[in-house]
């Protein structure tokens, strides 16, 4: 639906966005790839020449690599499991008729708008602090010994904090998806003799399939790069060093840019694997 004139105008109007994003992507990416093949230590003389694949090998063989991978997987997997399962249940609940639905919705969504540094700090100090935290008070109330959550149960604590932040996102998207389900379909299923559990299993869950996939993919991309939550709570200690955090430490704390860049390339590849699946779904949606 267009003429030559509008097409050339369109190209011109698209140019700034495309050029900017192209630069934003290509320039740093090229630099990262370049650094990853150099021995580059800014504080000890800068670029000390080519390094071949040394950085890549060293990054993978370093003693902190596999723990970081595990930490990353546990955090991402744990948060996904919690948010998707609770998200579905919560969405089903919120879809029921009730008084004050709007207010409940707001209460449930609120954590998503809390900036990551705030939620990390509030949880860390006011809830999980072993002396004055609310949990410590609660434990004492039942005569139990307060737990130093972030050092003794560090992974669980971080998974909890991050789940709290992302549960609203999962709930909101799944709720939107449930609400788009044609109620006649459910009524038809009921006429066909399906009970509540069967209706959930055969109608609602398949209908939610796409939304669940989207929640998983988008959250994975964000969760792979969570940073502030760890930066503020444990600083990567107590076995909470994720891949992202490890790279951050290599690059900015120990200023081994070559090594960190090799790690960065790994992270980019990892993210791209997830991204490909997400883009397929989004792309399909574009054709509709």
């Amino acid at each position: 639906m267009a003429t030559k004139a509008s097409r050339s105008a369109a190209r011109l109007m698209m140019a700034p966005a495309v050029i900017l994003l192209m630069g934003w992507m290509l320039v740093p990416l090229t630099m990262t790839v370049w650094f990853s093949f150099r021995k580059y230590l800014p504080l000890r003389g800068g670029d000390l020449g080519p390094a071949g694949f040394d950085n890549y090998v060293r990054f993978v063989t370093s003693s902190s690599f596999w723990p970081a991978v595990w930490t990353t997987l546990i955090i991402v997997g744990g948060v996904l499991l919690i948010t998707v399962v609770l998200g579905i249940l919560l969405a089903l609940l919120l879809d029921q008729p009730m008084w004050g639905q709007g207010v409940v919705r707001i209460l449930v969504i609120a954590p998503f708008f809390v900036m990551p540094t705030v939620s990390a700090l509030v949880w860390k100090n006011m809830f999980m602090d072993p002396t004055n935290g609310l949990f410590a008070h609660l434990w004492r109330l039942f005569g139990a010994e307060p737990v130093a959550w972030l050092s003794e149960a560090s992974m669980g604590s971080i998974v909890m904090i991050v789940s709290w932040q992302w549960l609203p996102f999962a709930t909101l998207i799944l709720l939107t998806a449930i609400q788009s389900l044609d109620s006649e379909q459910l009524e038809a299923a009921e006429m066909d003799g399906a009970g509540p559990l069967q209706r959930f299993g055969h109608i609602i869950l398949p209908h939610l399939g796409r939304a669940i996939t989207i929640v998983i993919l988008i959250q994975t991309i964000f969760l792979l790069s969570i940073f502030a939550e760890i930066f503020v709570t444990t600083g990567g200690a107590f076995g909470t060093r994720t891949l992202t955090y490890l790279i951050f430490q290599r690059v900015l704390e120990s200023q081994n840019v070559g090594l960190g860049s090799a790690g960065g390339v790994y992270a980019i590849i990892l993210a791209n694997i997830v991204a490909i699946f997400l883009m397929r779904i989004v792309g399909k949606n574009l054709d509709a």
Partner: protein
Amino acid sequence: MARAVSTQRKTLTTALAWAIGLVIFFPILWTVLTSFKTEAQAIANPPIFLNFDWTLENYAIVQERSNYMRFLWNSVILAGGSTLLGIIIAVPAAWSMAFVPSKRTKDILLWMLSTKMLPAVGVLYPIYLLFIKMGLLDSRAGMVIVLMLINLPIIVWMLYTYFREIPGEILEAARMDGATLKEELIYILTPMAIPGIASTVLLNFILAWNEAFWTLNLTAVDAAPLTAFIASYSSPEGLFFAKLSAASTMAIAPILILGWFSQKQLVRGLTFGAVK
């Protein structure tokens, strides 16, 4: 047709939903309450819920000691500036893709999306280095640009999905009615798209406000927004619960309010239009 649900069942659902809602909201509520307590009451055991001596002292101290207003101002400039700049760049691009689609439109959109998925940590050092070289480190201008770039794909996508809902025939009608391209954009498209543009602005303002990777790594003092301000409480001030709460409340209050207005758009924006 919705069926009548028994009052009993509705009461039960209501009670359960409210209970869960309050549990989820509790950390925020507790933070806000604590911000009005004295430090001693804030750590009291058993915890005091409501009957404490309400005081605004913490807010005054936080402002005095860490110059809260300057961080707030930086947050407003970074979030507002990057969103505004992003909209200016994205509106023409989204118009093009929505109304003059070509074979490559889909690829361009997906490619833009893919830049959003680039893990920030992978390009941290290059950006850091470029910022030093260009004198942009810890500058508002630099942060506005970075935040604009990381959110540009979302802005383009959101606008694109909104524009696509405007029937092309209406723009063609304007063209037949003698409107030039400029008049078409001013008199027809923009007024029709205002709700969509407004939600896009809102959501991106929130995202930029809460962004905590680049703001923590690329700012120090001059351009540091509230994310960095709060991070500075990580120790040892964090142990002063009342002050921490006051600082936190001030950092999240504006965005909580905006966020509640944007819940519907949130879904569309964060799923790139895949769920509406």
